[in-house]
């Protein structure tokens, strides 16, 4: 398992292909970004709009989770391969964090 190069055989063919791929990737990123802005807007509007509390709270939480997924899978490339261990550990961390929050909302009384 010494250092290894991940360049494949023919650099110039590879190069064109990669350029194109990167560009496509970037377009996806832009779309994701637009969506994120959009979601943010909706969340703020939902709050500004004085809707029923029991609708707004779960709704904006849902939007936050969707944004999280966008960030992770697009901006942070978690969908690319080589991210198996990272996602396992990130989700485990999220699980621990979730349990902590759940506990603090239920069994820390005042």
């Amino acid at each position, binding site marked *: 398992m010494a250092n290894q190069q991940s360049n494949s055989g023919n650099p110039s063919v590879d190069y064109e292909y990669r350029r194109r791929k990167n560009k496509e990737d970037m377009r996806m990123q832009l779309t994701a970004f637009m969506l994120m802005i959009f979601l*943010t807007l909706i969340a*703020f509007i939902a709050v500004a709009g004085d809707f029923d509390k029991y609708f707004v709270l779960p709704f904006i*939480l849902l939007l*936050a989770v969707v944004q999280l997924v966008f960030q992770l899978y697009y901006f942070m490339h978690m969908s690319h391969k080589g991210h198996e*261990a990272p996602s396992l550990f990130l989700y485990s961390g999220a699980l621990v*964090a979730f349990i902590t929050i759940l506990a603090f909302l239920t069994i820390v009384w005042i």
Partner: protein
Amino acid sequence: MHADEKFTPKTWPASPEKATLEGKNKFMGFWFFLGGETVLFGSLFATYLALKDKVPSDSHALAKDIFDLPLAFLATMLLLVSSLTSVYAMYHMKNYNVKRMQAWLLITVLLGAAFLALEIYEFNHYVHEYGHTFTSSAFGSSFYTLVGFHGAHVAFGLLWIVTLMLRNAKRGLNLYNAPKFYLASLYWHFIDVVWVFIFTVVYLMGMVG
């Protein structure tokens, strides 16, 4: 293979951040670190939620009184856009375009700095307008700790990116510093993720009540 080998756009590998073993290790280690950070912020959120609106009987600054939508919105936009600009920087990193990468990073840094400035203004506002301070109540302590920890992460991220930009201003990209740029950008996104939850859980949910 040496880390400071020179490259052209053509010889530049597809995933420069993971092209060396060192890069791979850093990449993996940093993701794990983010896993730990998730627990750290989860704990801070938990504390905040447990202590939200817990104030001594004679004090009145509650979440729904102090927060302000436009301010939170502005901050959110700044940070969201800076996340995109750092994606652009990485795009150019992958294409071995050092100049553009540096330019986008600079924009990212500026946006981040604006965010920080806004946050400082905001804290100041709460202190002077509502007497809502770090020591005034458990609510205050938990609010400033959560948001302040995030702010400290932003500050550290800025410092990190600026250091990287300066240090590598002259020598360009190589397989030794590419992972570093990549990690800094991951870090920046992570900060943004945390902010998504801060604006939702602290500001929006705080205003809903």
